[in-house]
């Protein structure tokens, strides 16, 4: 079932959606919530689409079963989302025939409407009022909200019978929360970021929990300072992650290159939004894939990882932390607004996994960039007696001193190339770098990446299509992808990009495809929409 809740920005629409999702998850349903809001604080229009099911779900439909319109604008805007049998629940002041009238404003005058929306929907769905109490209790001004919730609940009839499934599938969370927790469990000491949608909630989440998690969240003056501070922090021996969106990442690229040259371990979370430039700040996109692969001048090893689900975001953020320190490289974790801010039902098994990097053994004279077979040089941090760690953005010798001669330039470039080879060999061998569906007997395969996974994999399962999805973009698991498509007749690339970025990565790796499906209106693919398109193929 799909439920759309619409209303004025600042009226508690997002909160109502989250509370409803939490209630449904507590009753054992898998819930997915798409949150649509403009880049302003008050006065615009917000809406949330929640879909819930007994099966695991990760997408919503464009055409919905229930539309909750708390204001007149919602009626006009969401008529496109209604089907023949859609139930409209509208504010009692709105003149609309065949709609269920609810006193959203009446019970909550001059107040956020989240508790009144929740009361009305729970009653209509036939869910007992007790189920909503825990989420209402967590709101500020508890008594007032509780009163509003109860009044709203009483005001409408019960039309459905949504049962309690007793066994919970998980809790409601977002990709951003899971990125944050993954980094923490990978040994995070510092999170440094400048606010930028849709990465900001990682900063908020970690800043609120600095005390419990023993980490430090820092908000410097701009993104250049963010990555520069991170370089300083990592040089001094602490684990650091930074987060931003495309514009902020653009500012960071010069220092990204420094981290490649100086071999400074960094994890960069790039939450994509619709660009170019300021673009559509609160909407989603997958248009920074090539940027993340090629950002920075010069040539240096990097890893680019693209989680598709919050569980993967957690696991891969933790892994990114360990990869960054094992190989002393920048690791880019590329997500987007859809993964970062949508509501998912997740059962997260947290475990702290912190692998220590290779440290100087204090036997021989310390050389920061000493030549090794695998290209990885042991670390020492400032304050270590007997070692002098000179780090530089210039090309350098083993001791970290500037060099310019042809031989020495070649030697250090070759060391970094050896490291690149080590990374490629080890990661492609030891890590799960690509997801290949177990279903899919037909001779059509879909290749996708990142947050588009949810909808693609759900629809593909229904239609029995094969799905191939790289989790690592760099190093790219070309052999595995090629093997997976060997017996497929038709390959379709699905992504949220106007120019087709994944297809360029595939071409670079010698992988042929037949058709591309691209969406670039700032919205993710909707389930019914994608299904309709695929059925026509």
């Amino acid at each position: 079932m799909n439920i759309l809740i619409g209303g004025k920005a600042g009226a508690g629409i997002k909160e109502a959606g989250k509370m409803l999702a939490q209630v449904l998850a507590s009753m054992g349903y898998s819930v997915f919530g798409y949150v649509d809001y403009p880049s302003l604080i008050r006065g615009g229009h917000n809406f949330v689409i929640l879909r819930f099911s007994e099966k695991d779900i990760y997408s919503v439909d464009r055409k919905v079963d229930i539309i909750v319109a708390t204001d007149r604008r919602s009626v006009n805007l969401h008529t496109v989302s209604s089907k023949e049998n859609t139930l409209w629940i509208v504010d009692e002041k709105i003149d609309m025939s065949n709609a269920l009238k609810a006193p959203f404003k009446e019970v909550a005058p001059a107040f956020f409407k989240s508790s009144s929306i929740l009361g009305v929907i729970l009653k209509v769905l036939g869910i007992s009022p007790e189920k909503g109490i825990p989420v209402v209790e967590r709101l500020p001004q508890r008594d007032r909200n509780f009163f509003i919730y109860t009044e709203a609940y009483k005001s409408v009839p019960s039309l459905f019978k949504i049962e309690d499934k007793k066994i919970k599938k998980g809790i409601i969370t977002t990709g951003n929360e899971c990125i944050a927790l993954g980094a923490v469990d990978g040994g995070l000491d510092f999170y440094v970021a400048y606010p930028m949608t849709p990465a900001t909630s990682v900063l908020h989440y970690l800043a609120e929990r600095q005390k419990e998690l023993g980490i430090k969240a820092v908000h410097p003056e701009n993104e250049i300072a963010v990555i520069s501070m991170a370089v300083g922090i990592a040089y001094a021996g602490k684990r650091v992650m930074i987060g931003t969106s495309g514009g902020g990442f653009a500012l960071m690229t010069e220092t990204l290159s420094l981290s490649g040259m100086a071999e400074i371990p960094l994890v960069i979370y790039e939450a994509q939004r619709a660009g170019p430039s300021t673009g559509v700040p609160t909407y989603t996109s997958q248009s920074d894939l090539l940027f993340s692969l090629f950002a920075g001048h010069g040539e240096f090893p990097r890893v680019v990882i693209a989680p598709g689900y919050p569980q993967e975001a957690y696991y891969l953020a933790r892994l990114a932390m360990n990869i960054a320190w094992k190989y002393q490289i920048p690791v880019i974790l590329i997500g987007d607004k859809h993964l970062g801010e949508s509501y998912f039902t997740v059962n997260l098994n947290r475990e702290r996994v912190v692998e220590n990097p290779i440290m100087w053994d204090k036997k021989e004279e310390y050389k920061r960039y000493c030549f090794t077979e695998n290209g990885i040089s042991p670390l020492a941090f400032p304050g270590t007696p007997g070692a002098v760690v000179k780090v530089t953005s210039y090309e350098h010798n083993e001791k970290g001193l500037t060099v310019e001669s042809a031989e020495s330039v070649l030697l250090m470039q070759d060391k970094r190339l050896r490291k690149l080879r080590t990374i490629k060999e080890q990661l492609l061998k030891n890590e799960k770098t690509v997801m290949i569906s177990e279903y899919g007997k037909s001779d059509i395969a879909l290749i996708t990446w990142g947050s588009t996974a949810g909808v693609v994999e759900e629809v593909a399962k229904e239609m029995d299509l094969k799905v191939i999805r790289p989790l690592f973009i760099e190093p790219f698991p070309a052999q595995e992808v090629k093997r997976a498509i060997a017996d497929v007749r038709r390959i379709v690339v699905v992504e949220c990009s106007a120019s087709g970025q994944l297809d360029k990565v595939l071409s670079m790796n010698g992988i042929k495809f037949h058709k591309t499906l691209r969406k670039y209106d700032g919205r993710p693919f909707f389930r019914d929409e994608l299904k309709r398109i695929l059925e026509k193929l």
Partner: protein
Amino acid sequence: MAHFQQLEVQLKPADYRSDIEPTWCPGCGDFSVVAACTKAFSELKLPPENIVQVSGIGCSSRAPLFMKSYSVHTLHGRALPVAVGIKLANPNLTVIVQTGDGDLFSIGSGHNPHAARRNIDLTVICMDNQIYGLTKNQVSPTSREGLYGSLTPYGTIDKPLNPIATMLAYGATFVAQTYSGNPKHMTEVIKQAIVHRGFSFVNVLSPCPTFNRVDTFKYYKSRTKDINKELGHDPTDYSKALELAFHDLDHYYDPNAPVPIGIFFKKETETYHDRVNAVKARYKAVDKPTPELIQSFVDACKPKAI
């Protein structure tokens, strides 16, 4: 007892020199900055492994290479935020930024107010030669009006930026100016800057013999005036410090005006880390979470049982 670590046995200034020969032009003011720094390190008994020197790009930013200490040679304009990161990660280190007028006041100027207002305990040494050397003779933000450079064949029409007044306004808690032709004064000022708990800024007038033919050793020699000893300036007086700072560049326009050197302002007040520690104490924060604490947080994230 100093607030930084000290050696029991003092090292000689030469012990803080690396085996790399400076690549500066003969007669460059920056040579004596390195000499003053190593002398200051020696006199303060700093353990070499506890010193981290961070620099940007430019002639002056090479200074850390010529000294035996930890160092990060960063990007143009980015020494300050990298230094802040190092100090955040390990507050026990003595962190020094070696930079120049172009690095600090042109490309990197956006970071200055924020490091200063946070009063992070580090020392910024700006070798100010009022010209770009490494990119060959372009005017800098501190160049006097009318200075000729490779891009200003008719003399620059831009007004110079006032390093002392800006840093004072940003909230630096130690602001001084010294002159590389006066090694004794320079060493003393650098020592005090390092000892100062908080954000210290030292502007070193450090002539470029190759490109800047106006602001030379000869020019400064007869003009520098010690504001503390000769003018009796009390560095705890912020308003007086600002007033003096506003007249810092008078000599660009008035041939009789002095070039002030000395400590303009010095105030020990709570540093960034003092405030961090105060907040941590108030909210009972931990440095390393225990497994129980992590579990309690995980539990708190779960919805309450219904």
